[in-house]
């Protein structure tokens, strides 16, 4: 049995350790205090980020509504309840917060688990949704989303919009403690033209691909262009630009994008495969054949797809030469116009039936 006084002293030391950002409770704050990054502004507050007070359990929709609105798409929390709130859990999952941001045509980006990165994004003008855990014990977690909108390095605090409080300055060590409990998880919601300052190419590319898959093609094209502006030789950026242009029926842009990808990434079977497809559709069959052959020669996990492309191009070439032969056979026919018009519809279904037969074999 320790004396009451000793326990009180221990408690006091723990609290002061927490508040001073001691290395074992809030290691990153401690490091920041020891060595402040010179290029980081001392004080930032994004006052333009709106505030939506949270109703019981709805901190997910509220936090998301603030971030989505700040990114330029006005929404209210009620709009998002159906997209992120899980009644049985009385809360919102992280992955659904990401998915719901994408459903609004925005980029959802998970930050690296670093206090400094969070501050850098704030300095660049982007608020962050953070997941905190106030639970006193591991077996009694109290998870909560809030939006960090600013910081003050002199006072060593962050400014949060949380629950019913639109502006809640929180000591940085305390914030780090509750944030650290969930592995420093935070996400940004960004308009498609803006790349996070702390982003890595791989992670940002994955975020844009996810947006493309969500069906927001025009916005993902903007984001791919932003990605290429930051990382000009990104294969994902070049391929993404080509794929989205293709999906938007802009074959010219698609061809240019895949050409660039194939030239700069000579080992990418996907680049040559897609280039071959676009060239084939634009009836540049010789070029398409060369690209498809190169794609197959590169092998790799996409071989079934590249082989199928090559087969299709070969059939197209065969159909085209058959057409030419047909035309050559009847040079004397004075009415030339109907002949090719007849030949084209005849050739098309022919190649289609052939493709169906050969596909399983490939």
């Amino acid at each position, binding site marked *: 049995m320790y004396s009451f006084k000793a326990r009180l002293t221990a408690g006091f030391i723990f609290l002061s350790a927490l508040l001073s950002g001691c290395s074992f409770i809030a290691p990153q704050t401690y490091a920041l205090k020891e060595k402040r990054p010179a290029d980081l502004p001392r004080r930032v507050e994004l006052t333009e980020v709106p505030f939506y007070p949270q109703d019981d359990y709805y901190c997910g929709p509220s936090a998301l509504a603030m971030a989505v609105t700040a990114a330029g798409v006005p929404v209210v929390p009620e709009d998002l309840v159906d*997209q992120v709130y899980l009644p049985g859990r009385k*809360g919102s999952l992280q*992955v659904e917060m990401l998915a719901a941001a994408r459903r609004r045509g925005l980029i959802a980006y998970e930050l690296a688990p670093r206090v400094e990165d969070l501050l850098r994004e704030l300095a660049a003008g982007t608020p962050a949704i953070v997941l905190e855990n106030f639970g006193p014990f591991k077996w009694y977690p109290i998870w909560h989303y809030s939006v960090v909108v600013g910081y003050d390095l002199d006072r060593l605090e962050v400014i949060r919009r949380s629950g019913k409080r639109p502006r809640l300055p929180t000591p940085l060590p305390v914030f780090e403690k509750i944030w650290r409990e969930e592995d420093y998880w935070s996400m940004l919601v960004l308009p498609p033209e803006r790349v996070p300052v702390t982003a890595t190419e791989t992670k940002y590319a994955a975020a844009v691909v996810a947006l493309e898959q969500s069906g927001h093609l025009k916005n993902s094209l903007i984001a791919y262009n932003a990605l290429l502006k930051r990382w000009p030789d990104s294969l994902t950026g070049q391929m993404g630009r080509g794929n989205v242009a293709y999906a938007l029926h802009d074959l010219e842009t698609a061809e240019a994008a895949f050409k660039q990808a194939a030239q700069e990434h000579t080992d990418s079977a996907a680049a040559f495969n897609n280039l071959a497809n676009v060239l084939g559709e634009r009836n540049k069959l010789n070029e398409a054949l060369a690209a498809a052959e190169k794609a197959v020669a590169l092998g790799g996990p996409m071989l079934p797809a590249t082989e199928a492309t090559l087969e299709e191009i070969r059939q197209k070439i065969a159909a085209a030469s058959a057409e030419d032969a047909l035309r050559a056979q009847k040079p004397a026919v004075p009415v030339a116009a109907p002949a090719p018009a007849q030949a084209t519809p005849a050739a098309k279904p022919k190649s289609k039936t052939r493709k169906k037969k050969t596909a399983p074999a490939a």
Partner: protein
Amino acid sequence: MKFLSKLISQLLILSMVVLPFSTQAGMIGTDQVVASATAQANRDKVREFVSRTDVQKQFEALGLTASTAAERVNAMTQDEINRVAGKIDSLPAGASSSTGWWIAGVIVVGLIIWYFWK
């Protein structure tokens, strides 16, 4: 329950029969470019399908309608689905109501009292 497992197994059989032949000539998606070579090789369509239905089922069990559950699963990437499949019950779900705060407060105060005066 029996009906459900029957349905799932039938869907599985269908997917196993159909999926191997679904590779066709055409464009390779950007997502496949991103996935690393090993991830490509490990990609198991059947497993992906299972985790997808699993998440959807869990969503329904947690109070979503079938159509909302499907819509929300569709909004997730395969990586995200893999991240949550099978553990939706235990993953963090940000909520923090005022009731939660009260309970936490009572627990903390109770423990302090117990700690000092036991």
